[in-house]
């Protein structure tokens, strides 16, 4: 009987199924990582709608490039890499647009500060190994043991990285808080 991919199947199985002519298996990859990828992009872009569009583009490209994926166990960092390239391309286009139109529109529509872009930005700026763990644990909604399985690292390493990430985030958030206060004083 046909094989079946479930939510608990490894990324490896999903990738194998996609390559075997079952593109619907890619759904599980998307469902597994979309929140983590979108939040990372929201941190880079400070714009959730654009983050979603970019993530969608990255997933579509990833699908097309699936054959080139060497290590399915590191699919999330691979996805982040693709998303980074999409961002770079978009930034190039945006610069051109800005030169032409001055982009008044987007300045006028700067979104209200409801989303926690400060936090997302600091997460996006973490070193790759720490960032990955934070994104999967919180935005991807995985438990520590699930993160450890997915990344193929011991659970102790997961908590160590989380611990370093917390320290890093607290420092960088405190710094930007000071910076803001300083500038307020200067004004």
């Amino acid at each position: 009987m046909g094989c079946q991919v479930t939510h608990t199947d490894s990324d490896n199985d999903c990738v194998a199924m996609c390559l075997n002519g079952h593109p619907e298996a890619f759904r599980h990859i998307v469902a597994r990582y979309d929140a983590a990828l979108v939040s990372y992009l929201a941190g880079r872009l400070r714009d959730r709608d654009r983050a979603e569009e970019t993530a969608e583009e990255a997933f579509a490209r990833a699908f097309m490039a699936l054959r080139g994926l060497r290590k399915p166990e590191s699919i999330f960092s691979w996805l982040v890499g693709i998303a980074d390239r999409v961002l770079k391309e978009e930034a190039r286009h945006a610069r051109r647009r800005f030169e032409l139109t001055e982009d008044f529109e987007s300045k006028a529509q700067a979104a209200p500060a409801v989303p926690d872009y400060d936090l997302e930005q600091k997460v996006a700026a973490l070193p790759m190994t720490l960032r990955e763990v934070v994104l999967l644990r919180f935005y991807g909604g995985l438990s520590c043991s699930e993160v450890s399985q997915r990344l193929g690292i011991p659970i102790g390493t997961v908590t160590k990285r989380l611990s370093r990430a917390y320290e890093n985030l607290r420092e960088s958030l405190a710094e930007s808080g000071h910076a803001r206060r300083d500038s307020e004083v200067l004004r």
Partner: protein
Amino acid sequence: MNCRQCKDQLAAYLEGILDENAALAVSRHLEACAACAAEAESVSALRGRLAKDAAAFRGRSLAENVLQRVSLNQTHFPRRTNMLWKYKGRLTAAAALVAVAFGLVFLTVLTKTATPAYGLDQTVQAYKGVRYIHLEEQYPSLPPGDQNRQMWVEIDENGQLKRMRIEMLVTDDGPKAVVWEKGKATVWMAAKKVLVTVGSPEMADAWCKTFFDPKLAVEQLLRDERDGKIEIDRSKADDGQAIKLTVTYKEGSGAWAVYLVEPETKLVTDIEKHVVRDGAEIVAKISYSDYNKPIDPLMWTFVVPSDVVVIDETTQVIGLEKGAMTDEEITVEVARQFFEALIARDYAKAGQLLSGVPAKKIEEWFGKRTFTRIIAIGKPAPQPIPLVGGTVVSFEVEEAGSDGAKSVWKGSLAIRPVGKDQPTRWTIHGGI
């Protein structure tokens, strides 16, 4: 426990994954050490902030959008159909024994057999346990078109079609996907950004008979063989594994077909049909796979962008009542009322006459233009494209530019009955 150790354990402690003793040691240290307690509180606050922010990203799945893109655009992965005659099934010793046992039971129905263990009845029997099928249909002898499609089918406990999804890459409307369930078909046209629901109770029957149902196909073979209409040659496929049935029709139509049956499951994996029509041979290849692989529930819905035109012919009143009018009269009337509505900027009415497109969308399409009068509506003619039905009619409408300059908008409209749900009402379905 000292502060350094506490710090090392803190992340695991907050995750609740430390064992009892270790957790107790951390919590005792936190009670005793104000500095570590402050740090723990600060880390907790950060975790809370992360969790709160993360919640905003949940429940907004990209899966449907991405799948829509990749499944309607992907062409470069090998499809099963490409492997049509390279069947790779393996007959295990145990399965062979089972097959032989079945063969004894059904020995009476066997005629010419190269594989004496198999009879068509077994396949009919085997399909009783099938709930899910994925199939792909291709016509290599024809140019690419909507006859090349993939289908996912769910069958209920009584063997009746429960629902199906059909995806076609190349159609006149661009890539198209259809989900049929409970007598309604919802059609998603990604390129046109239109999602339309139509009542189509007979669709299930028609599609089962014509396309997907391998069980019906095998039952037909069985009847035809008993009636002496066909000859079935049973042999092994080129790979030496699958059961190959070569069917020839005695009546001299020139038609023939090949069925491949998986020896273990007795289910059909491939059908290739050859028919001669108007002197040309048409080849149809259907491959069946993923038997009983449950289909993702998301496959039965469409999550579409918010700017899509959504039309539901089963609930919305569409078009104009024909009454005692002839086909020609109703055509002219629909066209006239449509342009009058555009002139009066009555976008709701224009939308109702144009397949039920929402007023907002009509305004988006036509709101910037100013129409001043109908110059002419031509004489309706029957729709020339077969199977579409209805009529086509030409029109000329006067339009004023922003500078007041007059111009003429010429074109033609295709008009026909709304469909099974509102058969006496006629609507514009294309041509603008």
